[in-house]
């Protein structure tokens, strides 16, 4: 029951990068297409789940005044594993994400979950939390990537979605479009949760 709750809260209640406004740099930089967004999300999820597990297993041994340094070393080790694996098996994606793969180390979502959750809770709960937040982040990045790809290059997963004469809205795949697209999506999420709250309040009264 509680495991399920720890998992599902990552999908909506605290879904990054909208509710937890963390991990913005990769969100803005790599979501030029749905595929890149999903790749980044999956790499982050891998690191998040394993670092949560290890932090949780070691929580009784890590002295609290050096815990941040210890967490960073744990996270960095898993990032190196992801980096080497992606170099070996998914080289085109590795090239597309570029510098943002080593930068998973400083993605505040991962350190944030280690500090706020895994450092205090058991290993199973920490895995559930890591999976939930990671999958929530992956979905967010994929949706944002799809949105920008459809408008910016007129394709989705590399397939054309518009008629042949369609002029793509290149602003969306360039740097300024990233900020605007994320801002608009954040406003949309705010709008939906406001409406949901209103409905809940009406149902109670």
């Amino acid at each position, binding site marked *: 029951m509680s495991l399920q709750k720890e998992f599902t809260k990552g999908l909506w209640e605290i879904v990054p990068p909208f509710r937890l*406004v*963390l*991990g*913005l*740099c*990769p969100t*803005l*930089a790599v979501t030029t297409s749905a595929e890149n967004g999903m790749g980044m999300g999956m790499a982050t999820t891998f690191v998040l789940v394993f670092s949560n597990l290890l932090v949780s297993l070691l929580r009784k041994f890590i002295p609290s005044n050096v815990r*941040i*340094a210890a967490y*960073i*070393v744990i996270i*960095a*080790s898993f*990032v*190196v594993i992801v*980096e*080497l694996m992606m170099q070996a098996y998914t080289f085109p994606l590795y090239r597309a994400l570029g*510098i943002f793969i*080593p*930068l998973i*180390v*400083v*993605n*505040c979502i991962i*350190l944030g979950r280690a500090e706020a959750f895994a450092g205090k809770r058991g290993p199973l709960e920490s895995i559930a939390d890591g999976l939930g937040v990671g999958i929530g982040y992956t979905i967010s990045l994929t949706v944002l990537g799809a949105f920008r790809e459809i408008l910016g290059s007129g394709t989705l997963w590399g397939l054309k979605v518009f008629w042949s004469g369609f002029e793509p809205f290149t602003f969306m795949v*360039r*740097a*300024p*479009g*990233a*900020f*605007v697209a*994320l*801002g*608009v999506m*954040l*406003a*949309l999420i*705010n*709008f939906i949760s*406001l409406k949901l709250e209103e409905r809940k309040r009406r149902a109670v009264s």
Partner: protein
Amino acid sequence: MSFGDYMLFIIGAILVNNILLAKFLGNCPFLGVSRRMDTATGMSMAVIFVLTMAGMITWLVQYYILVPLDIEYLQTIAFILVIAALVQLVEIVMAKSLPALYRALGIFLPLITTNCAVLGVAIINIQAEYDFFDTLLFSFSSAVGYSLALILFAGIRERFAMARIPKVFQGTAIGLVTAGFMALAFSGFAGLVGH
């Protein structure tokens, strides 16, 4: 490179390839500390200082430790540890010798370890195969570009208090849209430096 080339290099790093608005590095603190002008200037000073130091030290670590020992794959771990240690060291030294500056920058220093601009620039320095002087120049001018964008943005954001913003856009959402327009303005500088 001649003097003119260096000028172009610096202007390019500050305005055209601004690390914040064109390369998306260091966005979390950008949105986090830009609500007020004084915190934005404090953060800017801390970033200029740490980024320049970190750029130089990671360059030395790469070429004098990692390359000779043939362990370049440990770059990520080595760099983040160097940056974390550097930030800690700067904090201790500053608290002892420059208490006034420490009080001004104090709370921003620990935040810088997880500012991806620092690690990002350190990695770019290596990937672009800069020599030591280029590294120094690039790190410093990137940090200046970061500060410029951060301070300008804080100036705009302070005015939000007086503007009527729709409820769903309040907070981070309007900040992001504004940053988008700033990035659009900065992309106009692309014509300054020919490719």
